[in-house]
């Protein structure tokens, strides 16, 4: 029983968290939620989803930055991931109205 509990403890401790550097992301939505979404659509920078933005242009801006936006480097997000993200943004629907923050 003690051994079983220890094993369960070890499993819980090892609950998977996806590392968040180039080549480790689980997909575009994870990148959006962990990065882009803190500004875009959060009242800091314009919403990008639902606008059918040109993926090539989005990828270039994310890589090189824009007024008020930092450059995201290949060690954070590699070219393939950036390309996927930009295509996901182009196809993503307009989000439902965000819930008000809990006060």
């Amino acid at each position, binding site marked *: 029983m003690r051994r079983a509990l220890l094993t369960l403890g070890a499993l*819980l*401790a090892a*609950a*998977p*968290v996806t*590392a*968040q*550097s*180039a080549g*480790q992301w689980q997909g575009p939505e994870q990148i959006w939620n*962990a*990065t882009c979404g*803190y*500004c875009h659509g*959060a*009242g*800091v920078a314009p919403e990008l989803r639902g606008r059918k933005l040109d993926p090539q242009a989005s990828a270039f801006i994310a*890589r*090189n*930055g*824009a*007024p*008020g*936006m*930092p*450059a*995201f*480097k*290949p*060690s*954070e997000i590699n070219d393939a991931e950036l390309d996927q993200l930009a295509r996901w943004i182009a196809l993503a629907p307009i989000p439902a109205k965000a819930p008000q*923050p809990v*006060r």
Partner: protein
Amino acid sequence: MTIASFLAAARAVVGKDHVIESPDGLAPFARIMMPVPEAEHAPVGVVSPQSLAEVRALLRLAGEHKTPLWPTSTGKNFGYGTSTAATPGQVTLDLRRMNRVIDIDPVLCTALVEPGVTYKLLQDTIRAQGHKLWIDFPAPGPLVGPVGNSLERGNGTTPYGDHFANTCGFEVVLADGTVLRTGMGGVANTKSWQAFRYGYGPWLDGIFTQSNFGVVTKMGLWLMPAPPAWRSGMAVWDKFEDIGRIVDTLRPLRFDGTIGNCGTLLDSTLFAASTAKRADLYSGKGAIPPSVTLEYARSKGLGAWQYAFSVYGRPDRVASDWKVIETAVAASGGKLVPDAYDPMQVGELSLQTFSIFNWTGGHGLAWFSPVMPLRPTDAIRQVELARGVMDKHGVDFMTGMTLNGREGLNVMPMVFDRGDPDSTARHRACFEELIQAFGEAGYGFYRTGVGFMDQVARVHGETQMDVNRRLKRALDPHGIIAPGKSGIHL
């Protein structure tokens, strides 16, 4: 020996995909927000190692090839230089791929992380493991990480807001490849590396912050047990001349722990810059008059100064501390806006601070960051001094002061359009004049960005510069690591 030969050798260490030297590839690393030319700070190459062994190998190669390396953790450092170097011709040592959360100890409430770990990754990891632990974030929290920010001695807004004060143990690679574990980290099979900061003998951690004496590859940090209760609020004072009274009111509340966190005192212009567009409020010439932003703040129920703070602890303590603050603020002529919510003060990630980019458009941002002793005379003097210099250059004065017990970090963002050469030149001249004026008035600095490091170092005195140079020569005799950082040259 050339940069090209170093980069060729580096490819064998980190793999060809993790070395950058093409102009297109380097462009993101050259991007800068400070009012200084990119060409003076742009890197000539980038190498991105993934392990301690690779960092050691790269330092050895850099020594052989006499190639200076500028280490970055996540490489953001908005408004302090982003990932650019103090001097031209350096290769960025990009540590973003080193992103292991090595340990989280829920008993002692500590973590051990690598430089590429972001606050977001650390928070996700803590939550996935089910621990009720808070992390203190700097303003760019989700995108940056504890190692870089703590080494820059950055600040956040919870009781753990002094980030360097809440580190515990570094692993540092010196220029010759020596791996030093500071504090208790030198003990074989150490059990207390993240529990006790000072170790035995001289305590060295400080010399590896805001410096270029080594490359930090691991850092311990302390995490805050989530408090059973908290309440956030905003104290508002209506007039600019209230600043002396505000400082006298808040200082004792910080000293006795009633206000447990590094709250932020914003003037009406920073409030306006965070929530409005400049062109919608003002179309005249020169710096925006404070009366304009005061009127705007009043229209939102705020005033000349607003102090965002939180109280934490057992529910009875929160209620009791709240009453004390309510009484003190009322006695000083202020009013309390209850439950105004700043996510960062309660352990939630946010990038709301960067709404200030919308003030003017354009990606220019530089923080002018003197230390302000928390005396009324100094608070009044610093505001007058900064406003006077900024008015002269047509630069908008605004400030967000992080208030501790004895001092405040008087962090004044300058937001401008880097696409406009005239505006950029004015902000640079203004920044230089501010450093000089504050230095002459007896004030020093919490932190500064590339382009102004030598000038700020001179304010802190020739003797400090000389001793730093002697340490540099002892630890890095070929000047491989980050030449020019904090004004430290060989």
